[in-house]
């Protein structure tokens, strides 16, 4: 089942400390199954979700970064990161586990305007 409606998921929460990151990812993967055009935006603490070298064995959780890496298999490849959030946290694009496009606030406003459905986590 495909649709013309597009969805933007805004990820604002760091992984592991709460379930928001995983909840968002599960929605993203389900949207992929429905072939709903999807954009993932990581802003605020959400940019930490993409950081490489996550090893959550000791805290007995599944690797979130490893789960993110299945996104391309669902044809989800519009991955945006807020440039301000990255800079404030001293993160660079090459420290991320997926290729991502760095976007500014003006671009974020445009993305919000252009998508039919916006979900925040």
């Amino acid at each position, binding site marked *: 089942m495909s649709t013309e409606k597009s969805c933007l998921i*805004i990820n*604002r929460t760091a992984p592991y400390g709460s379930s928001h990151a995983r909840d968002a990812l599960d929605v993203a993967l389900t949207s992929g199954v429905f072939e709903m055009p999807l954009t993932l935006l990581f*802003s*605020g*603490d959400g940019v930490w979700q993409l950081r490489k070298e996550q090893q959550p064995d000791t805290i007995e959780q599944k690797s979130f970064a490893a789960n993110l890496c299945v996104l391309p298999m669902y044809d989800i490849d519009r991955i945006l990161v807020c440039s*301000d959030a990255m800079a404030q946290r001293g993160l660079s694009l090459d420290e991320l586990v997926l290729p991502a496009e760095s976007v500014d*606030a003006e671009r*974020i*406003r445009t993305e*919000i*305007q252009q998508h*039919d*459905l*916006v979900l*925040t986590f």
Partner: protein
Amino acid sequence: MTTLHTINCTPSNRDCWQDCLNAISDGDTLLMIENGVYGAMSKADFWPDNVQIAALEGDLKARGLSAPASVETISMQAFVELSVQHSKVVSWF
């Protein structure tokens, strides 16, 4: 295509408020609900231009607050009406 933004965290959650304010475009409405209504006590020059700023009256009243002139006090009825008028609702929490 304008957006109704709702925010329910107090202004001390700077990240949430920053993300929300950065996401607002001309013609949008920002509606403070729940603990977000504490933001109504912010100074008038805090608010973006060309944006309707509103706070839910039940939440203001619960907290013993009165919105200043720069913030419109609205009912749940108006919250729904705004949801219809704008093309989408984005929740910041």
